[in-house]
C-alpha cells in the first residue's frame, strides 16, 4: 500500500493556495469598465515599447473585427458597436427588446451622424472590445488549465480502456496507477461543468455565440444556432461528462472486485464495458472538441479538430502515467514495474508526439494550401499574434521529444524521461492555450499571474486527488488474468 507522503501533500496544498491567490488576483485586477481600459491603453502607448505594441494591437483589432463581423456591412458593424455597450450580464428578454429597438433606429443614426461621431464610436467600440478581452483573460486562463487537467485524466481513462479491450499483457501492473490518475476525472468534471454553466449564465465572454447580441448580428453564428445554443450545448456536456464518469466508476469497481473473486467474470464485464466506452468516447470526444474548444472561434471549423485535440491530451495522459509511475517506482511501491514497462510508456510518449505533429501539420497544411480567407484567419491570428507559443509548441511537442526519445537507451533513463515528460506536458498546455486564447483574449494574451496560478491550482488539486486515490487500494491488480505475464514483461 502506498501512503501519501506528507511532503507531497504539503506541496499540493501550497500549489492550490498559491493558485487560488493568483486566480483571485487575476480576477480582481481585471479592468471593470472602459475608463480603466482607456487608462491602461494610454499608459501602454506612453511606455517605452508601447507605441509599436499599440499599433500591433490595432491591426489585430481590425483583423479580429473583420473576423467577428465577417461579411456584414458597415451598418451591422455599427449595430454591434452600439449594442456591445449593453451589459453582457443583462437578462435576455431585456436584451431582445433593446435589440429590436436598435434595429429600427440604427439606420437613420448612421446616415445622419457625421464622420466625427463615427470615429468616436469606433474608439468606444475598440475600448469595449479590449475590455471584454481583458475581462476574459482570467477566465480563459482558468478555462485552459481546467480543461487541460480534466482531459489529461480522461486520456488516462481511455488508455486504460484500450489496454482492457486489447487484453494487453504488458500493462496490468500499471492498471491501479491509471485508475488512480482517473480519480481526478469526477473532480475535474464537476469544476469544468461549473465553468461551462458560468459561461452559459454570461459571467464571462468565452463563447461569443452564447451572447444573443452577437448571434443576432452575425449570420454565420445565427445559422449554427440550432446546434450552438446554450441548452443543447450544456445537455451534451452533461451527457459526455456523466458517461465518462460512469465508465470510470464501474470499471474501477469491477477491477477491484476481480481482486477477491474466484473466476474472471468481473474481468469479462470490464472488457465489454471498456469496448462500449471506447465507442462512446470517440464520438463524444469529437463533439466535445467542437463544443468546448472549436466553438470559441465559431466562424472557423476544421474536420480533423477532434483528432487533433485527442492527440494533444492523449500524449499528455501517457506522459502523466509515465511520470506518476516513475515517482511511485522511486518510492518503491511498484515492485513489479520494471524498465521494460517504463520503456513501453516512453515509446508511447514518442509515438503520440509524432502523431500529434502529424495532425497539427495536416490541419495546417490543408488550410495553408487552400488559402481560403475564412479558414486562414485562424492561423494568421496565431502566427502573427501568438508566434512564440504557436511555434514554441511545435518545438516542445515535436522537435524536443523526437530528438531526445528516439534513442532506445534514453527511453529507460529516469531523468531523461522526467525532463522530456515535463517539456511535453508544458508544450501541450501551450497547445491548448493556442487553441483557446486567440478566440477569447486576442492579442491581449500573456502568460502571467492568472495563467500560471490557474495551472498551479489545478496541478495541486490533481496531485492531491490522484495520490489520495492511490492510497485507498493496493497498487497491484493481483487477480487480473494477465498479471503474471505483466509481472514478467520483458522487452
Amino acid at each position, binding site marked *: 500500500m502506498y501512503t501519501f507522503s506528507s511532503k507531497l501533500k504539503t506541496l499540493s496544498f501550497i500549489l492550490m493556495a498559491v493558485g487560488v491567490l493568483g486566480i483571485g488576483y487575476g480576477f480582481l485586477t481585471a479592468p471593470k469598465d472602459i475608463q480603466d481600459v482607456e487608462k491602461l491603453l494610454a499608459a501602454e502607448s506612453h511606455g517605452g515599447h508601447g507605441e509599436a505594441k499599440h499599433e500591433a494591437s490595432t491591426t489585430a483589432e481590425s483583423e479580429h473585427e473583420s473576423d467577428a463581423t465577417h461579411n456584414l456591412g458597415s451598418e451591422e458593424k455599427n449595430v454591434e458597436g452600439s449594442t456591445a455597450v449593453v451589459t453582457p450580464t443583462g437578462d435576455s428578454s431585456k436584451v431582445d427588446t433593446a435589440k429590436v429597438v436598435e434595429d429600427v433606429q440604427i439606420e437613420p443614426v448612421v446616415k445622419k451622424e457625421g464622420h466625427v461621431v463615427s470615429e468616436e464610436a469606433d474608439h468606444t467600440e475598440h475600448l469595449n472590445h479590449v475590455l471584454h478581452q481583458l475581462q476574459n483573460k482570467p477566465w480563459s486562463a482558468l478555462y485552459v488549465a481546467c480543461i487541460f487537467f480534466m482531459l489529461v485524466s480522461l486520456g488516462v481513462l481511455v488508455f486504460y480502456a484500450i489496454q482492457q479491450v486489447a487484453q494487453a499483457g504488458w500493462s496490468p501492473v500499471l492498471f491501479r496507477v491509471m485508475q488512480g490518475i482517473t480519480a481526478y476525472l469526477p473532480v475535474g468534471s464537476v469544476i469544468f461543468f461549473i465553468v461551462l454553466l458560468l459561461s452559459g449564465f454570461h459571467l464571462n465572454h468565452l463563447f461569443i455565440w452564447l451572447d444573443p447580441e452577437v448571434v443576432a448580428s452575425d449570420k454565420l453564428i445565427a445559422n449554427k444556432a440550432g446546434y450552438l445554443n446554450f441548452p443543447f450545448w450544456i445537455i451534451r456536456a452533461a451527457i459526455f461528462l456523466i458517461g465518462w464518469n460512469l465508465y470510470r466508476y464501474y470499471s474501477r469497481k469491477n477491477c477491484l472486485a476481480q481482486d477477491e473473486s474466484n473466476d474472471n467474470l468481473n474481468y469479462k464485464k470490464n472488457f465489454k464495458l471498456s469496448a462500449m466506452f471506447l465507442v462512446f468516447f470517440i464520438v463524444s470526444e469529437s463533439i466535445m472538441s467542437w463544443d468546448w474548444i472549436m466553438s470559441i472561434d465559431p466562424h472557423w471549423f476544421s474536420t480533423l479538430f477532434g483528432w487533433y485535440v485527442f492527440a494533444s491530451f492523449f500524449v499528455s495522459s501517457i506522459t502523466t502515467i509515465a511520470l506518476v509511475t516513475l515517482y511511485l517506482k522511486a518510492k518503491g511501491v511498484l515492485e513489479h514495474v520494471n524498465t521494460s514497462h517504463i520503456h513501453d510508456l516512453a515509446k508511447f510518449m514518442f509515438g503520440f508526439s509524432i502523431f500529434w505533429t502529424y495532425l497539427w501539420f495536416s490541419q495546417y497544411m490543408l488550410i*495553408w494550401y487552400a488559402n481560403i480567407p475564412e479558414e486562414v484567419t485562424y492561423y494568421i491570428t496565431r502566427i502573427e499574434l501568438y508566434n512564440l507559443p504557436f511555434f514554441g509548441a511545435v518545438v516542445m511537442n515535436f522537435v524536443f521529444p523526437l530528438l531526445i526519445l528516439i534513442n532506445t537507451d534514453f527511453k529507460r533513463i529516469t531523468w531523461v524521461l522526467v525532463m522530456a515528460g515535463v517539456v511535453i506536458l508544458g508544450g501541450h498546455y501551450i497547445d491548448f492555450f493556442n487553441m483557446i486564447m486567440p478566440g477569447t483574449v486576442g492579442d491581449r494574451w500573456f502568460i502571467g499571474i492568472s495563467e500560471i496560478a490557474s495551472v498551479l491550482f489545478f496541478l495541486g488539486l490533481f496531485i492531491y486527488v490522484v495520490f489520495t486515490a492511490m492510497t485507498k487500494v493496493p497498487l497491484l491488480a493481483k487477480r487480473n488474468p494477465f498479471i503474471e505475464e505483466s509481472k514478467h514483461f520483458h522487452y
Partner: protein
Amino acid sequence: MSNKVIYAIYNDDDILMDAVKKTRAAHHHIEEVFTPFPVHGLDKAMGIAPTRLAICAFLYGCVGISVATAMMNYIMIQDWPQDIGGKPSFSYIENMPAFVPIMFELTVFFAAHLMVITFYMRSKLWPFKEAENPDVRTTDDHFLMEVAVNDNEEELISFFQSTGAVEVKVIDKH
C-alpha cells in the same frame, strides 16, 4: 576436430530459450540457432551484440530527406518555377509546407528500402541462395541450436539431453 558440431533440436520456443540460457551459463559456444519464426529475446539470451541497423536507418533517413529537398527545390523552384497554392513566391522555404509530405515520404522510403537491402547484405542473403539451415524441420515446427564441440562430445550430448532437447546429433561439418 574443431569442425565437429552438435545439433540440439527442440520443439518449443520456451524450452529453447531456457536451453540457450543454460548453455551460455555452462560456457559452451553457441554457433547459431535456427528457428521457424523470430523468438522474442533470443538475441539477448545468445549474447549477440545489439544491432547497428538503427544507426543505418537514421543515416538513410538523412539521405532521403536531403534527396527530397534537393529534388523538390530543383523541380518546383529552379528548373520550372511553380505557383504553389496561389502563392507565387518561388522560394523553397516559403512553400515548404507543400513539400513536407514528400520530404517525409522519401525519408521513410530511403530508410526502409536501404535498411532492408543492408539487412540482406549483412545476412548474406540474395536470390537463389542455397538455404543454410541444416534441418528442414526448422522451417516448420522445430528449433535447432548449433554448438561447437571441443573434445567434449559425450559431456555435451548428456548436457543437451538434460535441457529438454528432443534430438541431439553430432555432425562433422566441412
